[in-house]
């Protein structure tokens, strides 16, 4: 892909948390690009570092407790080199963030209007009246039926879906180039999920924004994403277009994930279960394929000592060489390598 349109370039970013005086990588050596008009989905199970990546881009980590290396090149500025004041020029203005839990992400004591216009207070010179009009416009845009009324309400008076819409309205208020949506639909029921995703897609088209959609829900990814990055234990293990990742998954983890998803043709079978857990930060192996312990039947020789990304098709990359030899236990023998 041509790098010219990549306005966000994440280069070799690692974030380490301090636990008992020692630093442990929560995400290591992440490389990602985002273009305008695209939705990049980051998938992976809980604890794989998806949210850490999001908060790293937003600079929301306490510098005393974390060590971040690498480069987050946003339209030519390395965000990681900015101080708090410099970062605040980007947060809310050029990068909007949508959080996971709409129930707690809004200040319970402030009216919706105040919470949306707050972001404009810091990034625009609009008059009070213009701000009010913009709030109403935004609430309309995210599909709230009675924006005048909602603007005067407090968060506890709104349903979960409406609160998530308000949070989206806050994130897009200043028309950011990048929207990071961290599990925006996890706390919502399925019908609302679909509506929220529609809202996100519409906004992306309107503003030509790039969206990073973080989720563990493969259904959401299949519906919305243009490109997909699969994360496991703090690393990206596979990345490519949505078609590539869904139709020709290569990495054992991606294949396991897809196989553990209910589908029409396997509805009578037991679902595939990936045995084991994501290792905790302290127990993360320093070397070798981090997914290897969860596919014990694959011989050790199949893995690389220091797994790197391999391009299997244009724009489609897979970590470690083990994908070439990987088979599920029940397939073994039926296919020859």
């Amino acid at each position, binding site marked *: 892909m041509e790098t010219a349109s990549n306005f966000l370039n994440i280069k070799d970013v690692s974030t380490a948390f301090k636990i008992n005086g020692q630093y442990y990588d929560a995400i290591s050596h992440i490389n990602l690009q985002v273009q305008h008009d695209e939705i990049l989905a980051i998938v992976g199970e809980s604890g794989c570092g998806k949210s850490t990546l999001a908060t790293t881009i937003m600079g929301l980590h306490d510098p005393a407790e974390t060590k971040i290396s690498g480069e987050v090149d946003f339209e030519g500025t390395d965000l990681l080199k900015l101080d708090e004041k410099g*970062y605040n020029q980007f947060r809310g203005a050029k990068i909007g*963030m949508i959080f996971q839990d709409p129930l707690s992400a809004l200040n319970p004591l402030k009216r919706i209007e105040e919470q949306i216009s707050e972001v404009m207070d*810091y990034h625009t010179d609009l008059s009070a009246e213009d701000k009010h009009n913009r709030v109403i416009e935004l609430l309309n845009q995210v599909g709230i039926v009675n924006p005048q009324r909602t603007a005067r309400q407090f968060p506890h008076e709104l349903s979960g879906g409406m609160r998530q819409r308000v949070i989206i309205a806050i994130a897009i208020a200043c028309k950011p180039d990048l929207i990071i949506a961290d599990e925006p639909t996890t706390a919502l029921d399925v019908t609302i999920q679909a509506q929220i995703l529609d809202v996100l897609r519409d906004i992306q088209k309107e503003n030509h924004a790039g969206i990073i959609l973080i989720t563990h829900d493969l259904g959401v990814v299949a519906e919305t994403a243009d490109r997909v990055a699969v994360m496991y234990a703090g690393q990206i293990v596979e990345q490519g277009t949505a078609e590539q990742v869904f139709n020709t998954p290569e990495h054992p983890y991606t294949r396991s994930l897809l196989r553990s998803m209910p589908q029409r043709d396997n509805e009578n079978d037991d679902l595939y279960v990936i045995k084991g857990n994501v290792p905790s930060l302290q127990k993360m192996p320093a070397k070798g394929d981090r997914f290897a312990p969860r596919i014990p039947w694959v011989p050790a020789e199949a893995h690389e000592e220091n797994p790197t990304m391999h391009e299997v098709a244009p724009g489609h990359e897979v970590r470690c060489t083990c994908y070439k030899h990987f088979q599920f236990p029940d397939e073994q023998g039926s296919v020859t390598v």
Partner: protein
Amino acid sequence: MWKTILRRFLIMIPEVIILSILVFLLAKAMPGDPFTGSINPKADPAQIHHLMKINGLYDPWYQQYWNWVVHLFHGDLGNSYQYQEPVTRLIGGRAGNTLWLALFTMILTYAFALPMGVYAGRHEGKLPDTIIRVYTYVTYCIPFFVILVIGIWIFGYVLGWFPTTGSISSDASGWLHTFGSRFYHILLPGLLGALFGTVNIVQYLRSEVIDSKHSDYVRTARSKGVPSKDIYRHHIFRNSLLPIAAFAGYSITGLLNGSIFTETVFSYPGMGLLFVNSISFRDYTVITALVLIYGILNLIGTLLSDIILSIVDPRIRIQ
């Protein structure tokens, strides 16, 4: 909101009735009587028996209670056996002193506690926070009356900065001098009360600030690009002060309870000192009246807390 307050107020009525019965019965259940030893140590038991009888102390409890309630509604709380004075006048002369001291203590408490709590929470783990925490732990460990006794010893006796008894000096004349003298007399008890009273508020506020600091809505505010200073001003302070505001009503209760210690140690002529004295003299009429007043003030304190909370927290307002 008015509905909430009205409903809350109506609940208070049965509470007051039950409280008054309990108070009356408990006072009656105390061993001893008001006359033995108060007239003449060698008084004839038959005479005491006679006094008990004409004062209605042998009547069944419900009859005594009913008489008491009827008189209560006429503004008559009976006569003190000890002081031979109407209870209303006895208490009326002291209530002002107690409220004056309580109000002063409360103002001082909040004036100290709010900045300390917010500062400690904001700079969690740093040196000033540690100092404030050590102060609260140490103060919390010492019983209140010990603080009072130590305080009175150091500042009243050794250094001689403050008066150690009474509410006003005997030679005070003119309103300015009177006011000054009154103020001078409550300064030390007020300061010591505040020193003790800050502990809960500081600890509570500190943990509220720390909680808010890590809350999701503060993260939202940060992702809006709001500078840290404004996040404290617009988001953390107000949200952390909520429980403290609600606490204000209850803290009146604490102050009144504390007044029993303070007034005894400082021989300060208020309701607390009167209460302690009347217990040792089995002065039933005074005890029941005071316990009832304290009880009602407690109920008002909780009512106030609920009202304050419903004003400051939109989630509490019931439609």
